[in-house]
């Protein structure tokens, strides 16, 4: 099988609009969780969020978007997508070639504009400009049309593991000969829909989240997007290569619609099978970017699953302590962070941790440090029992 390598990265998170800015902020242990400033919600100042402080109008100006009906989710994706293809140096010809795929994961899609949707769905006699922009597919379809992408295009949804699965699907399209290169990742924007949804389940924390801490009290929602350009190693002569996407797996916990089973079966199987695909032993993983949402359920079960597989787990951290949980974008964003771990041979601190969970006793990375890293793992788990793990390796 051909090696699948990453030749371009585009990212936007509350920590910054470029990969470089994100690295600097992670190094400094910055927490970008704050009140919501640019959209209206009852919880705007009551709960912390990972909000990107750029208005939709500013994005439209920067990205040269003038047509109506383009949502914030699409704008964030467009930002990351443009950066990724530029970074990889893909030509228009390559982007429009039938063997270039485009796969995006999202959970909220165009439903980020809750108020317009409410009026269109219930009251309006004449629809708003967003009528065809609410579904999840709208985001990737906009980008597909804008760039004239002709290869396989898809939108993935496995809840909070959506973009991890988009990356996996992209790698498999290349390995199975359905594409030569794939731009894959994901996006989600903050929305009343998800804020109130997670709030109704009592899992939003009123303080910045504390992944793996005994006193953790829930997650914070964030927004962002990341896309990676995946290519076959033999096709990329002379290009800069970030890393190899060497392992992946998708499993189901098959236990409950919104919580993980007691022994973390789904997460355990995802990590185990990803290692098998990568051809690695557990002790070869040097660092894990965990799912680590900061909820009672996730962090304990993820810890149990890591202990089952690794006995003594490797160094690990949760970057959700910096930016919150970006849902469908999380797998993509955290994949980009894993690339930073590999390229710069360093790990970043997991924030707001003080005491380990009593039953598992695990300590995340406390501070920035240089570290020899050959292989990193990224975990993403979601509602519906969807569990995914990716492995990136140094080339």
């Amino acid at each position, binding site marked *: 099988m051909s090696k699948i390598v990453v030749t371009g990265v585009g990212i936007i998170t509350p920590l910054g609009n470029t990969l470089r800015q994100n690295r600097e902020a992670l190094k400094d242990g910055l927490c970008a969780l704050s009140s919501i400033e640019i959209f209206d919600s009852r919880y705007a100042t009551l709960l912390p969020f990972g909000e990107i402080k750029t208005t939709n109008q500013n994005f439209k100006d920067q990205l040269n978007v003038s047509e109506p009906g383009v949502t914030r989710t699409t704008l964030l994706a467009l930002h990351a997508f443009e950066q990724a293809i530029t970074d990889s140096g893909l030509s228009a010809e390559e982007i429009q070639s039938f063997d270039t795929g485009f796969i995006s994961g999202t959970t909220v899609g165009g439903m980020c504009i809750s108020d317009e949707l409410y009026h269109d769905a219930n009251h309006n006699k004449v629809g708003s400009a967003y009528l065809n922009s609410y579904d999840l597919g709208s985001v990737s379809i906009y980008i597909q049309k804008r760039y004239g992408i002709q290869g396989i295009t898809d939108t993935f949804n496995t809840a909070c593991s959506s973009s991890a699965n988009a990356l996996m699907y992209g790698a498999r399209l290349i390995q199975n000969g359905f594409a030569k290169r794939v731009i894959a990742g994901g996006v989600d924007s903050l929305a009343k829909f998800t804020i109130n949804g997670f709030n*109704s*389940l*009592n899992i939003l924390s009123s303080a910045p989240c504390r992944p793996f801490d005994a006193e953790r009290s829930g997650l914070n929602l964030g927004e962002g997007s990341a896309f990676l350009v995946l290519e076959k190693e033999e096709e990329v002569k002379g290009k800069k290569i970030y890393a190899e996407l060497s392992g992946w797996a998708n499993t189901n916990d098959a236990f*409950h*619609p*919104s*919580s993980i089973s007691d022994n973390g079966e789904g997460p355990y199987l995802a990590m185990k099978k990803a290692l098998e695909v990568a051809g690695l032993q557990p002790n070869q993983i040097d660092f894990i970017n965990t799912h680590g949402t900061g909820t009672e359920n996730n962090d304990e079960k993820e810890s149990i699953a890591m202990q089952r597989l690794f006995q003594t787990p490797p160094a690990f951290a949760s970057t959700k302590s910096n930016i919150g949980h970006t849902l469908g974008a999380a797998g993509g964003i955290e994949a980009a962070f894993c690339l930073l771990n590999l390229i710069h041979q360093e790990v970043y601190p997991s924030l707001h941790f003080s005491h380990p969970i009593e039953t598992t006793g695990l300590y995340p990375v406390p501070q920035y440090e240089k570290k020899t890293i050959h292989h990193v793992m990224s975990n993403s788990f979601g509602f519906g029992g969807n569990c995914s793990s990716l492995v990136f390796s140094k080339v």
Partner: protein
Amino acid sequence: MDKEAEKLKLKEHIIRYLNLLQVTPDDIKDDMPMFREGLGLDSIDSIELVVMLEREYGLKIENPKEGRRILTDVNSMMEFIEQGRAKQNEA
């Protein structure tokens, strides 16, 4: 309203909020556990019941641990509703 009528009303609310197909108020015994072996409800249902108490009775449960006790069965929910009413009357 007498106590039996109140209980019937509460059971109807439970059935409606949880969309318990094929369950009638008579099927829900006053001391039948709501969770696990009894009605077989789960954590999402417990939140539905908390919302039901808030919307139908104007009563808030702030502490989730307290919620578990209140939502044990129809009797415990009735007790919570009566205590809540007494407090509302005092105020």
